[in-house]
């Protein structure tokens, strides 16, 4: 940079910036499957995973689909509106896990059922005081932000 005139320095910078943006876009586009953290149920239906492939599935826990009472095992269905996939999980669920909430599970597909070995809850960007939500529910005007 030292020996260059001001105009040439600006040209070098612009060129470097364009090259950076282009390479980032190309790398990001080419590796989008690896960069995306999970697959949606629709994607799993469209492109079924290989036999025994470990992957993450993410979506909403379908309303009324949670079945407990099989010891430590819980089963439910995960949906993205397009496709629904049954999930079975043995272990402790995070606090935020509930129906109509986002979740991400890691595991394998076995006979059309996703056997999860780990379940994470996805939080949305809604922040509301508890009293307000209770009051809204009492008046019957509460709308689930995810619903």
């Amino acid at each position, binding site marked *: *940079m030292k020996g260059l005139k001001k105009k040439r320095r600006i040209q070098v910078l612009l060129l*470097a910036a364009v090259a950076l943006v282009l390479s980032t876009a190309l790398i990001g586009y080419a590796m989008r499957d690896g960069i995306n953290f999970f*697959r949606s149920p629709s994607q799993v239906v469209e492109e079924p995973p290989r036999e025994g492939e470990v992957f993450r599935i993410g979506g909403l826990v379908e309303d009324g689909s949670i079945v407990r009472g099989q010891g430590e095992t819980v089963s439910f269905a995960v949906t993205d509106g397009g496709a629904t996939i049954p999930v079975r999980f043995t272990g402790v669920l995070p606090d935020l896990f509930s129906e109509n909430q986002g979740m991400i599970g890691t595991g394998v597909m076995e006979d059309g059922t996703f056997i999860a070995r780990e*379940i994470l*809850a996805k*939080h949305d960007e809604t*922040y509301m*005081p508890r009293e307000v939500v209770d009051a809204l529910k009492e008046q019957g005007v509460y709308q689930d932000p995810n619903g």
Partner: protein
Amino acid sequence: MSIWEYANPKKFMQTSAWALPWVTGLAVVALVGGLIWGFFFTPDDYKQGSTVKIIYIHVPSAMMAINAWVMMLVASLIWIIRRHHVSALAAKAAAPIGMTMTLIALFTGAIWGQPMWGTWWAWDPRLTSFLILFLFYLGYIALWEAIDDPDTAADLTSVLCLVGSVFALLSRYAVNFWNQGLHQEASLSMDAEENVADVFWYPLLVCIAGFVLLFVTLVLIRTRTEIRSRRLKALEARERMA
């Protein structure tokens, strides 16, 4: 009067000496006020309970981690194009502060993630690019220390800063490109529908203002130190010559 007058070290020292007490005072007031308001005088969230209070540190520190890098980028570009030494020193001075903000955001995020998501860490696009940003901060600081000639160091770190901007911007906008991640979208954005209730939103704004002012205060102090240490070196060099 042009803005470039402030690139004169003498003018910069005068102006910053005048501004520093004000900025420091405002930073302390906003930070202490905002954090006390946020921690003790806000209700619990309907889903997260009192864990929600961590946003009063997490959101401002994550914002400043990214904004500090953007500020370093602007200062580096001014150095490369216009060769103002104060600009290069300001970028150097901001790096450790930005790195600390990144660490704070990573730690508070992990503490929040454990009870909420069910994990301390996940290789989500947003989290990963933030971790890489942290590593870039380390590399940037190391590069400044590794090169003896100050002008060469300023040139090379400027180029590193330009490359690192990719991850600074990605950690903010990753959710727009790869929307299947674990991290929720931005809690605050100008265009989107408001999702944060006002009782949380106002103290958060005060905390953000506090973090911005804290950053400005620290950058001013550290830039002044850098200028003084450079003057000292020049004096020592003159002494040896005599």
